[in-house]
């Protein structure tokens, strides 16, 4: 099962190496890992997607928490979260295909961020499934290059907070 682990860590040199090293040394598989600053300059947040059974994940959480500069560890399994990936993708887009491609981009709420004679570069964000789906529809046109961030996530604080304008991850596709 896929778990999204969020770890608040001290913003110090060596922390990323320590976390990554621990995963490698203990044979845990990282699906994706994203590190970024938080509102507190002393802290960074790592969002790590891990695949494993409950026993493995229990160890992952505990071993992470054991690392001294790791301040807090959360596993978002079984709770409502907003999870997002960001992707930049350059698609072959000869003039005759452009209209078609642009309508696809619109369907996925992507944004054209660069355009050349034979390609468009698109920024797409969303849940992983949406990113995968967009990659699939782009394949027939030819993908020139692709870069993805990996997942970041935050738990929804309460179901009650959902306003009608907000859509769940599934609906957004």
């Amino acid at each position, binding site marked *: 099962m896929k778990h999204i682990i969020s770890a608040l860590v001290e913003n110090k040199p*060596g922390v990323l190496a320590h976390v990554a090293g621990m995963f490698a040394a203990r044979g845990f598989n990282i699906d994706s890992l994203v590190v970024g600053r938080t509102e507190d300059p002393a802290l960074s947040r790592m969002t790590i997607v891990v695949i494993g059974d409950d026993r493995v994940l229990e160890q992952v959480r*505990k071993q992470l928490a054991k690392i001294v500069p790791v301040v807090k560890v959360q596993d978002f399994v079984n709770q409502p979260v907003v999870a997002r990936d960001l992707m930049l993708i350059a698609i072959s887009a000869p003039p005759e295909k452009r209209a078609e491609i642009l309508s696809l981009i619109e369907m996925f709420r992507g944004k054209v961020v660069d355009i050349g004679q034979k390609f468009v570069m698109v920024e797409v964000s969303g849940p992983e499934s949406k990113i995968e789906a967009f990659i699939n529809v782009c394949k027939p046109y030819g993908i020139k290059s692709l870069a993805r961030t990996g997942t970041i996530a935050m738990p929804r604080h309460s179901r009650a907070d959902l306003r009608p304008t907000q859509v769940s991850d599934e609906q957004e596709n």
Partner: protein
Amino acid sequence: MKTKSRAPARRAAKPSIKTGAQIIVDTLIEQGVDTMFGYTGGVVLPLFDRLYDAPINFIVPRHEQGGCHMADAYARASGKVGVVVATSGPGACNLVTGLATAMMDSVPLVALTGQVRTELIGNDAFQEADTTGITRPITKYNCIVKDIKDLERTVREAFHIASTGRPGPVLIDLPVDVEVAKLNTEGPAEMKLPGYRIRTKGHARQITSAAKAINESKQPVLYVGGGVITANAAKELSVLADKAHIPVTMTLLGLGSYDQRKPESLDMLGMHGSAYANYAVQQCDLLIAVGARFDDRVTGKIETFAPNAKVIHIDVDPASISKNVGVDIPVVGDAKTILKALAKEVEYQERKEWFDKIAEWKKKFPFRYDQSSSTIKPQYVVEELCLQTKNEAIVTTGVGQNQMWAAQFYKFVRPRQFISSGGLGTMGFGLPAAIGAQVANPKATVIDIDGDHSFNMTMTELATAVEHELPIKVCILNNGYMGMVRQWQELFYGRRYSKSYLKNPKYEALAKALGAVGITVEKKTDVPKAIKQMLKEKLPCVVDFRVEPEENVWPMVPAGKSLDEMSGLDILERLI
């Protein structure tokens, strides 16, 4: 581990200008350091200059690895934090085995390593190595201090992290420019460790559930590890075991936590543990693990380990719980506090049937060897050592057969008496460990029960023992082989003794050349006399016991077998 808060406020708050090296030495002294081990070198010269007239007993090993093992054993024997210093590059690299040894056995250690100047880092400078990168997986915590302002706080944090919770080695890498930089210190720097929390007091409800399980159990076993010794909880363990009337088995590192002369002691369990401990664990209905981590050498085949038992696990490290074996009642916290609380809630039970069964196993399968043999049996040497030292010596070991025979045939009676590399299994640990233990206990009898090839690995440290006039005793169970390797080759590789036999030096002459006492014992009848003489010596003494070359350690749970599928019981039975 008991938390000792050493109040930084003790230091004068008046501002003074100090170099980094001075800050380090002052903070070490503030942390109660009076003994250190280490080897000098280019980038630690400023630090060693400050150590020149510091009130610290400084032991220089002949190799940094030896120094690290010495500091490790010093910590294990004293309960204090061991401190080791090395220079950058090769010096730091030579600490690796020692740090990994301490990490696996949860030993509180602070290592200080020199580093090249901050601006040279990453340039492949002379004697540069990425020390924090190399040692990250084998330390509890490590860091490099690039700003003198962080120095005092970091040293203080290192001692705190090393000695609390599940202890372990902490390394601080010190670029030489930070050692010589100057700072106007304005009073003690507070620790900043937002990610470091330790649970000490066990959860009250969990303790009550554990007590209830103990009171309901007909066939319980206490399975205790090094954590009980680290937590200084041996007394509390005895109280609980006596009050609830529970037999106690110990891991290799747990030896000493429970008096092995008591009838409730099941001695060591596991691969080369006693048959009665292994049978008891396999048949118990309740297994109470305290400060132990269900290591594969203890559990044998994990799927069939203690198959009928409910498991209580008391440990300060939450990550140890349910790592290898599913736990029914976990209690996270300090063993001393939890055992004390637990003892209050348990009731005495006679458990006659259970103890009768155990007594029967004990009678049928004690640790045994062929006493009628005309050759020197290594087990006989250990037994004689135990007898002549009246169970009181501090014993260190190498790794392999020598270690197992020491664990099987020396009966330990108090904590911090048996010092051995358990988790990592570091050959060469015995001699430097004896030095560290002797430095911590100058009056004690310290014996290194060693193998010839374990001794060969670090024998250079004999010179260190001679220099410091440490009366350590080294008993080499000399069989010419890497004994445990040879045993496996005999059992599993058709007696093809591939690369496990080496030509040894004449240890007696070697000892004498280094300024120690050397004795060779070739006849069985000379063993008691030689040990007697050895115990009288004031200088380091090496005794070369020419033991039976192809003796095996029995019983043995072959890899992948259940604990009760021991080999060698038939051999032991024939010896009655």
